């Protein structure tokens, strides 16, 4: 069941304003993760975690090492794209929100809803920047 578009639009816009590209189809996802490092965020209406995650993303993106590409799909809205993203790391159960860092098409870090909910934007930003430090610096292992 999809949410009314007008309900999720502000949450989509929050990410677009941070520089995220909306990837609403599997092909768009495939293209964006294909090369370099990509942070793919599965956006969510969930107040417990989504409301923490979005400001956490903004904080993390002020870090000195960040991914080459930023992309997003919306859980419950961009169904095919979200399913395709999850198929790329199918050993992890689905959650929303969810953040995954890809390097040259392969997932290298996945952050699940239970690691976000009940914490703070700073905590989530810390999880992200630890992954950025490990995988997005020019001297990071290939």
């Amino acid at each position, binding site marked *: 069941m999809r949410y009314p578009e007008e309900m999720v639009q502000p949450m989509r816009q929050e990410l677009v304003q941070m520089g995220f590209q909306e990837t609403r189809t599997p092909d768009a996802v495939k293209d964006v993760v294909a090369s370099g490092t990509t942070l793919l965020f599965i956006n969510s209406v*969930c*107040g*417990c975690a989504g409301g923490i995650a979005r400001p956490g993303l903004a904080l993390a993106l002020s870090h000195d090492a960040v991914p080459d590409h930023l992309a997003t799909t919306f859980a419950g809205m961009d169904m095919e794209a979200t399913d395709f993203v999850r198929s790329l790391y199918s*050993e*992890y*159960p*689905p*959650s929303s929100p969810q953040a995954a860092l890809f390097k040259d098409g392969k997932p290298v870090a996945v952050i*699940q*809803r*239970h*690691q976000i*909910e*009940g*914490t703070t934007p700073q905590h989530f930003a810390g999880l992200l920047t630890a992954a950025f430090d490990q995988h997005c610096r020019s001297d990071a292992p290939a």
Partner: protein
Amino acid sequence: MGKTCDDPLHGLTVVVDTPGSVVYIGRYHSETRDGFLLMDADVRDVGDPSAKADYLARSARMGVFKNTDRVIVPRSEAASVRRLIEYADTQ
């Protein structure tokens, strides 16, 4: 009993542990007259109770392997209710 949204665990992913080999992992909704209501839950019998720590550490790392939409865990079965993320330290 207060309003559901006043419960500090409402919406959070928790583990309701039991004295035996069964463990419940899911999104805490509320405490009802009959027990703890969890949504999108993993109701798991790990067999050997000593395997529980490993299973919980894996779930804390990977997420919730949901197999049940909604479950009420009887209060009499519950030994503890803790957030799933707390089990990440036991890896």
